[in-house]
């Protein structure tokens, strides 16, 4: 069953230091796991001496040594392929793919190898790797630094797909992903690395420090994969979202004063179907929000599941709010982004239907 942990509530385990942003929380998770497990290694482009282009691995090489945190050649198939072999040896690699848009050369090694090695070898070999990768738009990254390719991975058996939406969740989920014996694709919503985002790109940026979920314990904790988080309890409509869109959707709901139940899925595979069913049966309405392109996006899967399992509780058609089926544009980024207007229009429609 899902946790009910509203975003504006203080996490139960929270302790000092207060105010980690998502990058610092990810760094803390990696640091914690490098300390706890001598088999954890980190590799990727620019992750070593420099500490990553987003600084997620800053200071880790200096602290843990060059054979545990190191730079790699610019070769995503090489990075993932090497990580498969490291897993076969008994290590627990955490490769970084610098942008999710760069993951495609490594796709064969993820889909045909890492995701299948346990099955085809009957567990003689496993691929306990966590592939970290910044994803999503809203940073003027153009089409090669903005994509959301999560549904490529949810479609493939044998790999798990996890997407955090807060610093607190990022650390707990990342630790659980690293400890997981299955390959996990861990997509980090880079738009909210430094602060939550309400979808109004023209408003001043809010830092994480003002947000309760920046209260990240310094020590080890984990959030089980496959448990959604109900970030707002409500009766009128269920809103399913993950990553950046949790914050955007929540802001619209609050601004409109709609009594929506907002669920942060946190993990797409495995999916917390129980949380979704319970909520939709209660509200009778379901809106799905994701930044990825619409056709065959993960929203299609969610919509089908809700329809198959909650049809007789539905009072309106399931509605999707997504990015458009175009490449991610540069100058028209905010026309593409499924922001407050698109969400508001959909909310008004589903509540009227």
């Amino acid at each position, binding site marked *: 069953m899902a946790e009910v942990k509203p975003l504006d509530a203080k996490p139960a385990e929270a302790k000092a230091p207060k105010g980690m942003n998502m990058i610092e929380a990810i760094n803390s998770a990696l640091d914690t796991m490098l300390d706890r497990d001598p088999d954890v*290694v980190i590799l990727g482009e620019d992750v070593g001496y420099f500490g990553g282009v987003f600084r997620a691995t800053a200071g880790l090489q200096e602290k843990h040594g060059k*054979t*545990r945190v190191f730079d*790699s*050649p610019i*070769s995503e*198939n*090489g990075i*993932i*392929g*090497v*990580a*498969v*072999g*490291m*897993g*076969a*040896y*008994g*290590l627990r*690699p955490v490769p970084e793919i610098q942008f999710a848009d760069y993951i495609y*050369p490594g796709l*064969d*090694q993820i889909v*045909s*190898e890492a995701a299948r*090695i*346990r*099955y*085809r*070898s*009957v*567990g*003689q*070999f*496993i691929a306990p790797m966590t592939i970290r990768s910044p994803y999503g738009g809203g940073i003027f990254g153009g089409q090669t630094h903005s994509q959301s390719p999560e549904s490529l991975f949810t479609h493939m*058996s*044998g790999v*798990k797909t996890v997407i955090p939406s807060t610093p607190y969740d990022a650390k707990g989920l990342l630790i659980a992903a690293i400890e*997981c*014996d*299955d390959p996990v694709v861990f997509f980090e919503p880079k738009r909210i690395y430094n602060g939550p985002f309400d979808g109004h790109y023209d408003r001043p940026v809010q830092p994480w420090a003002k947000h309760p979920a920046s209260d990240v314990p310094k020590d080890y904790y984990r959030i089980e994969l*496959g448990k959604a988080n109900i970030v707002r309890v409500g009766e009128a409509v269920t809103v399913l979202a993950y990553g950046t869109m949790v914050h955007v959707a929540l802001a619209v709901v609050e601004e409109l004063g709609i009594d929506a139940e907002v669920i942060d899925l946190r993990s797409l*595979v*495995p*999916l917390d*179907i129980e949380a979704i069913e319970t909520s939709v049966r209660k509200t009778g309405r379901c809106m799905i929000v994701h930044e990825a392109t619409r056709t065959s996006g993960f929203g299609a899967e969610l919509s089908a599941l809700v329809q198959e399992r909650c049809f007789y509780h539905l009072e309106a058609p399931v509605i999707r709010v997504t990015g458009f089926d175009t490449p991610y544009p540069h100058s028209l980024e905010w026309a593409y982004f499924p922001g407050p207007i698109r969400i508001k229009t959909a909310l008004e429609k589903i509540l009227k239907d």
Partner: protein
Amino acid sequence: MADRQSTPKSNLAPLSLHVPEPPSRPGDAPDFSHVEILKAGVTPRPAEDSDPAAMRDHAYGLVRVLDDDGAAVGPWAPKLDAETKRRMLKYMLRVRAFDDRMYRAQRQGKTSFYMKCTGEEAVAIPATMALDRDDMCFPSYRQQGILIARDYPLIDMINQIYSNSADPLKGRQLPIMYSSREHGFFSISGNLTTQYPQAVGYAMASAAKGDTRIAATWCGEGSTAEGDFHAALTFAAVYNAPIIFNIVNNQWAISSFSGFAGGERTTFAARGLGYGIAALRVDGNDALAVYAATRWAADRARTNKGPTLIEHFTYRSEGHSTSDDPSGYRAADEKTAWPLGDPIERLKAHLVASGEWDDDRHEALRTELSDEVKAAGKEAEKNGVLGHGLHQPFETMFEDVYADMPWHLREQMEQALAEKDAKWPK
């Protein structure tokens, strides 16, 4: 597209596209005139710690030990006792007997697919014997000799090929895609050369942990064109990984001759030079040369001197697989015209010439191995053959997708079990 149709500039000769064509095709006499065969024993043997730049000629030459009279000559001749060489011969004969039996089993409908390594027995077996027993092998699909040389039970190989109730891989994998961690044999993928960077990762892990084990991997000359091949060589060079890369150049990738992987311009061993990796080109039908080259590379890797690339120059005597008929694309007599002979006959001639073997013993051994394979086949058939019966519980289809079964697979498993009851009532 209109401007693509523009008039060629009249003062320039037109461009032309080169599409490679093998020297001979069906109906032609086989032509290996382009193959340069160095004499056995003439290639110098550099020290194992040599700078790759100081041994560039080895990427273009051919390490050969066995001469035409069966003598082991030159600096590469390994100091092996007769017992070890007889064991090598026995493994090679065993894999040939096994291939013949399994090929027939496929034709008899006992399984869907098989791949022989006929003519390439000297590639995997002497190499495996030159490695330590706990070194990790990341093979392609034609190195069944590794399992044979590590005494993997024949019956388990056949159980896998028949996808039967005793299949160690629970009927999940295409025949011959074996896996045995216990025998240092990584799970074979049907996607080509994916094992190359994986082997590098294993070797890097071993080095990072201060272990003493090394890794070895194999791919065909055709699949050196895959991106993973080049990624693997880059990583191995960057991190000085303790690994042996083997390219089995058997001249044919299904119907495409080696020219479609760049073989018209240079050797495959020379691929290593651009990465600063030590490269050896070896007579792949010379069991003692393969043993010596692998030993050289293993010693180099194990002493932190880095990776080696070995091209095994050999010939695929049979079809790519049971699904292939080479008479449709290559000259019929290539197998007999191949200038480097048969690897088993050459090792046998060496042992006979040195008084350690004779025809009678050879024939007796062949009969013994044929009987052994036949008996293993009969025993395996007791566990079923492909397509005759439900050999694995339905649940196994859903197990091992993840460490723990998520709800959606549990639901689908229930569906499969319900279908089973409807389709195959008890």
